[in-house]
């Protein structure tokens, strides 16, 4: 093999060295801390903004009826199960009456006895009245003594008093009986309204304290969402605003609703506002009480104003603003911001005009002296 002439060899060496040197300079200036920072720009646009609020809450029933005995006792029977629909007035179960029926019968006997006593007293009075009238007539023609007439009158008065006493005794016995009947009725567990049995806490045979709960009935038509909104950014929350409700089990499908009321008391510990949101139409099948729901409240649209993305916001010292591109260089522009929506767009009250160019995304933190390179997408970012 013939060796290359010297001149050609130096050319070959140069052909290796020169590109290497060029690459070196490129690498030294284009990577690492000396490289310009890639940024993307956005143009400030005047837009209408539809702010919205986002909160989460749970499905609750507005009317929940807890049914149970008023006095201590044992549960005798329970006719309904969880999920049953009940109507107002329906007997759902009964407490064990123990001796109440016997007392009822005894009281009936007492009542009948009182009725008999009344009849007796009436008979006595009728007789006493007849006697008294007769002796009055006899005394008028002087064929009887005054003493005898007075005695008969007294007998009549006694008989009348006996009759009144018998009447009262009868009333007393009747009222006692009614009282026992009322107690007997009270042992039955009765649905106060139409609804759905949501819980059956105890089974027949259980001894219960007065006031404990046996059944829980909810009114399915009264389901609402107990929503919590963070106090920051909850301005504008008011009754009557339309809402979109997404239940955790029905991800992706939303129901419409409306804010029923904003609670006058906020949660001081969690720093949240509370509100109740009602479904426009209760979804079927019924969402279970306690299910998590995401609620988005649409606020009335705001008039047109310059709008930026919240990704463009930066902090310099204690000022909040954006990096504005002016004549190819960067300038920090402090802003006064207005409302924002859930898509991350923010209204600018002061600082920018529509048409201004600001930095949206950057590869690194920026400064006034940073060299920038405007790109469509930050390299190394999302593919």
């Amino acid at each position: 093999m013939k060796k290359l002439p010297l001149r050609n060899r130096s050319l070959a060496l140069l052909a290796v060295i020169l590109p290497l040197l060029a690459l070196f300079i490129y690498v030294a200036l284009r990577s690492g801390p000396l490289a310009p920072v890639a940024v993307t720009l956005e143009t400030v646009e005047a837009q209408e903004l539809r702010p919205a609020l986002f909160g989460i809450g749970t499905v609750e029933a507005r009317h929940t009826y807890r049914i149970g005995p008023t006095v201590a006792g044992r549960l005798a029977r329970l006719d309904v199960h969880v999920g049953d629909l009940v109507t107002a007035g329906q007997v759902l179960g009964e407490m064990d009456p123990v001796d109440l029926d016997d007392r009822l019968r005894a009281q009936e006997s007492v009542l009948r006895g009182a009725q008999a006593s009344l009849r007796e007293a009436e008979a006595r009075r009728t007789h006493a009245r007849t006697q008294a009238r007769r002796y009055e007539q006899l005394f008028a023609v002087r064929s009887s003594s005054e003493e005898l007439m007075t005695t008969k009158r007294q007998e009549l008065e006694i008989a009348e008093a006996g009759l009144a006493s018998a009447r009262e005794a009868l009333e007393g016995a009747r009222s006692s009986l009614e009282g026992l009947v009322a107690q007997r009725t009270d042992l039955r567990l009765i649905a106060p309204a139409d609804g759905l049995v949501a819980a059956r806490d105890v089974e027949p045979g259980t001894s219960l304290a007065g006031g404990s709960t046996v059944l829980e009935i909810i009114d399915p038509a009264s389901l609402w969402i107990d929503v919590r909104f963070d106090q920051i950014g909850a301005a504008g929350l008011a009754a009557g605003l339309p809402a979109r409700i997404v239940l955790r089990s029905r991800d992706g499908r939303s129901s419409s609703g409306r804010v029923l009321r904003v609670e006058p008391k906020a949660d001081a510990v969690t720093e949240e506002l509370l509100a109740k949101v009602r479904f426009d139409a209760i979804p079927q099948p019924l969402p279970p009480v306690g299910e998590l729901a995401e609620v988005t409240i649409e606020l009335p649209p705001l008039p047109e104003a310059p709008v930026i993305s919240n990704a463009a916001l930066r902090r310099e010292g204690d000022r909040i603003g954006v990096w504005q591109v002016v004549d190819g260089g960067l300038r920090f522009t402090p802003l006064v911001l207005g409302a924002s929506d859930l898509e991350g767009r923010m209204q600018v009250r002061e600082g920018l005009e529509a048409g201004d160019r600001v930095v949206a995304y950057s590869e690194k933190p920026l400064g006034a002296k940073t060299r920038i390179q405007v790109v469509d997408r930050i390299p190394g970012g999302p593919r």
Partner: protein
Amino acid sequence: MISLAGRDILHAWGKFVFTGLGLGLLIGVTLVMAGVYRGMVDDGKALLDNSGADLWVVQKDTLGPYAESSSLNDDVYRSIRAMPGVARAANATYLTMQVRKGDGDVRAMVVGIAPGQPASTPGWPPYLVAGRQITRAHYEAVADVASGFALGDRIAIRRNHYTVVGLTRRMVSSSGDPMIFIPLKDAQEAQFLKDNDAIRQSRRRTAANPVFSRPGQPGVLEAVIASQSTNAFVNTVLVRLEPGHAADAVADAIRRWKRLTVYTRPQMEDILVGKLIATSARQIGMFLAILAVVSAAIVAFIIYSLTMDKIREIAVLKLIGTRNRTIAAMIMQQALALGVLGFVVGKISASLAAPYFPKYVLLVPLDSIAGFFAVLVICVLASLVAIRIALAVDPAEAIGG
């Protein structure tokens, strides 16, 4: 005057270039190793920069929130906010955990950020590379691109699903795990919420305790269970100072009056760099030293063998009466040229390879300059051995062979 060294390089230029490339790759590895160390330190600093805080208030006598666990009541920030010199105070939680997406998972540091305005609230990512900042108080996430998540992805943290709405860059924990920002309330839940089985077990345990479920007091059990499932703790309160207030003075005031531990920026850097990554840094420093020694040895060998290859030519040079100085200059010039070539190749390969490392590699220009001079010094020292041999050669060898 012709350059003997240049002539000799041209004579065997292929060998020279390939030796230079090989040496360059070795130098590249050394530079990358230095970059790995700088990257680790920078990860720690990035963590502090990104939090946007001047002071970190943590549980008393802990090194939290990054180096140790710390927990504070989440209403402490209100009283800190009221201290003089404090411009802003915001709760934050940090928890390193596996974040699931589909079948896979990614190790990430989940950061809970307090609700507020982006940029002005400490803890929020200071800049994005795509998407937008969080606007909803629940179930939205901003992830670092290093996590591999894309906009619109649904990721699972504990039992909740979050939609990725924004992407950041260089938002990493001190160990280089990508950060995922989620709203504070969700993060508090993620940090302390047990799995459903554990919750059920705990409820049963409570219910079995006769103290809590007494007959005739039906509400007690519910109340106890409700109180067990609340969490009102955060890991740290990030504080930003009002302009004109000294960090140390405000930190002292908080320490004194709130009886909490407070770290300033230099103290926090000290914890992260001095304590958290100290062992790894020493490990890398050791490796760097070994690599430098190995590189020096290899350079010496290369120069030595290059000289030995042309020992006959050197003998001829001596025979024709060339001065020792000229011969020494030739060898040293060659060694330096090799070093320069090697450094250029090394710098290029390191710069091109750096972005592909799983953890951040930061190539600092000053490191490169120092490396350049180190390479030259090593080359000079290595060539001294070769020069000694070359000068000691007997001119008779040129004919003797």
